[in-house]
């Protein structure tokens, strides 16, 4: 029998999960229909704060307090709460999954897309911004190839302090290299650690998140983000696959 084809996102997440797996990261899941606490408030993004404008949100009719998650950092929050319950002081997870933003769609924007969010926490001093850099340095080298470089730029997210944007230098085959904005990240804000029920004096860590489709678009030259969730099998066959 002729084999069918996996969706390119499945193929990508397998590869990313493998790379992060070698760095000690497990995989965590959480609901897509999330409560305000895990999506915003616990993450230090209070109601009526302009920071909420950074992510256009879908709200649920008749259920105030419920949202379609705007990022998978909500899963990070749930895992941190779990750590508080079990008394763990160390955890590393990636949370690949679908997220939603209420914004008009075009070639580079979709209202629903995948994000690769994740975090690493450990006893104070063991997980630093330098480790965030080291983690992404290795991740991009293994995912994009040995010529990639990583740089940080200052940014702002309610749930991290300091906050950075992660850019990667990528040279597509036959093309000129360029810096790409790939993820937001930073050191988990003490309020977030506190909200999870952990002690910010005892644990610290980094969190990150970025769109998945964008990475694939760059890596494989896919022109339109809307192809990913169109249900069109021609998309699966537009990328030749070779088992490794």
């Amino acid at each position: 029998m002729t084999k069918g084809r996996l969706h390119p996102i499945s193929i990508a997440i397998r590869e990313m999960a493998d790379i992060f797996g070698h760095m000690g990261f497990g995989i965590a899941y959480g609901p897509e229909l999330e409560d305000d606490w895990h999506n915003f408030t616990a993450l230090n993004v209070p109601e009526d704060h302009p920071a909420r404008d950074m992510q256009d949100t879908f709200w649920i009719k008749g259920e105030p307090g419920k949202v379609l998650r705007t990022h998978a950092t909500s899963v990070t929050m749930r895992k941190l709460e779990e750590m508080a319950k079990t008394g763990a002081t160390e955890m590393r997870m990636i949370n690949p999954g679908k997220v939603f933003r209420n914004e008009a769609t075009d070639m580079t924007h979709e209202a629903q897309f995948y994000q690769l969010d994740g975090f690493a926490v450990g006893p104070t001093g063991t997980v630093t911004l330098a480790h965030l850099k080291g983690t992404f340095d290795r991740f991009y080298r293994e995912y994009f190839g040995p010529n990639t470089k990583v740089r940080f730029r200052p940014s702002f997210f309610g749930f991290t302090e300091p906050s950075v944007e992660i850019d990667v230098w990528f040279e597509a085959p036959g093309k000129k290299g360029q810096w790409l904005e790939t993820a937001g990240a930073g050191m988990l804000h003490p309020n977030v650690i506190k909200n999870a029920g952990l002690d910010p004096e005892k644990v610290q860590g980094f969190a990150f998140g970025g769109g998945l489709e964008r990475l694939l678009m760059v890596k494989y030259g896919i022109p339109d983000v809307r192809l990913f969730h169109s249900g069109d099998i021609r998309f699966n066959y537009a990328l030749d696959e070779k088992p490794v």
Partner: protein
Amino acid sequence: MKVSLKWLQKYSDAPLPDATTIADAYTFHAFEIEESKGDLMDVKVLPNRAADCLSHRGLAKELSAILDIPFKDDPLRAPLPEFSKTDALIVTIEDPKKCSRYMGALVKGVKVGPSPAWLIEALEAVGQRSINNIVDATNYVMLNIGQPLHAFDAKKLVQKDGTYAINVRGAKEGEKITTLGGEEFTLHPNVLLITDKNADAAIGIAGVKGGKAAEVTTETTDLILESANFDGTSVRRATQALKLFTDASVRFQNRPSPELVAYGMRDVLALITEIAGGEVVSIVDEYPTPTAPQSAVSVSLAKVNGLLGSNFSREEVENVFKRLALPYMVVNDTFTVTPPFERTDLIIPEDLVEEVGRIIGYDKIPATELSPIAGTPDQARFHGIERMKDQLVEQGFTEVSTQSFASKGDITLSNPLDKKMPALRTSLTENLQEALTQAKYHAPLVLAPNEKPKLFEVGTVFPKEGEYLELRMTERVPEWGDKADVVDNLSVAKLEDYGKDYAPVYYELGAYKPFSVYPFIVRDIALWAEGAEQSEASIEKIIRENASGLLVRLDQFDRFEKEGRVSYAFRLVFESMERTLTDEEVNSLMAQVSEALTKAGFEVR
């Protein structure tokens, strides 16, 4: 925030470097640059710095710290004058939670007219239109130090016993106001208004926009100037309800310090009396609960390096606070910073760590690999899901991904993007059937003639009982036994056990090859070949050479032998990236193919 480089230069004696250097300085140490064109630079000020950096003064200060060049004539460090008060103007605030401070000034005898050239030039440099010297002065001071200001025509207010009275109060249900520009708004009670108390009439939407009723015109001689601080939440709700976003509302939403109010008043009075004349009759400062000075924040050198993973010295860290002109003390390698009033973002030690990281530069942070973690990372559930997928792929199924939004469902969005898709899907059935219909149509492009498309999707569905991860196939898998259904709830399946020792199949993908948005045309051709020398390969070669570049797929789908001859059948798929093909065009290509095959000794049937 649009800034003019010439304007920034006012804060430095040394000439500023070129635009590229300035853009890089901001990009790697403070904010992204949206646009840089000549003298204009559009700086994307981050939300935590909007309280002080939506201003030329704030951005110039940043630049001075980043480039380590002296900052001169800081308007926020220059002393404030004594403001003198008479009975000519009184101000009342009904809810100090929504308006923590309101300064009003009565200025008489101004001459409204065009602004001086330097002012027109400064405003136009940042994309603002010059209106008149009064309005321009309020805008200039706001763009310079960040304090929103407003000027009312005093004579359009009612004077009682020689006194003008401003009252800051919530709107009455259904109260109307016409703003500058002539738009009328019907207000909700939580919108805060500036009113003429003697007439109980609205003259402005607090922190958002002034009203037409007290507009400054060329006839205006007396002004009431407003420099105030309105609550961010209140302003934010008003702007969202009214869909009215202004330079003032953006600033108030980000909660600038109420201390800034007096600096705004000082500067706007100085500028107006300079360019429009007039006499300051009275200045009222209604400030029920003055904001306490910012608390000092301490951070140790060990904490700085422990969070950043750096190895910065005491001197390097100290130098950052010096460059930012933040008052500080160092005792035993612990830095205690007392933030100036405008730096409302400096609250916890981590905020100071960020200052150190970004000013020294994140390029100075090493890349360190995490040390190994105890135990094996938990990816069992993931591997369980992927094992299901691998099984289906083995059985000829192709995985698709479809939209989570649906026309009907148990859970609906209060703000759907597409009004026709207001709900969340309760099952993958509908989307999968639709994808299958499409797949059947597209099958000749991607599958061999004897294959039919079989699809599956793994996705979250949202029935009223609660969301779960559904696996759904377009048909049963016979190999999975009689009991196997086309659907499975992966949220209840024991996937951890199923996946814990499984390694998923990895693939390398090639570059994306675009497919056409135009329809394709399928043609079959059957022929007799005489002997073994007329191989399939040679037939395929002839077809490809004669069918033109529009042939996108060629499959052999039949072969049998009879009386020493071999019969072959091929399926040809034609498609253009640029247009819809016509039957005639494809017929003529097929005729070409037939002719070439005949010439080569085949008998086309």
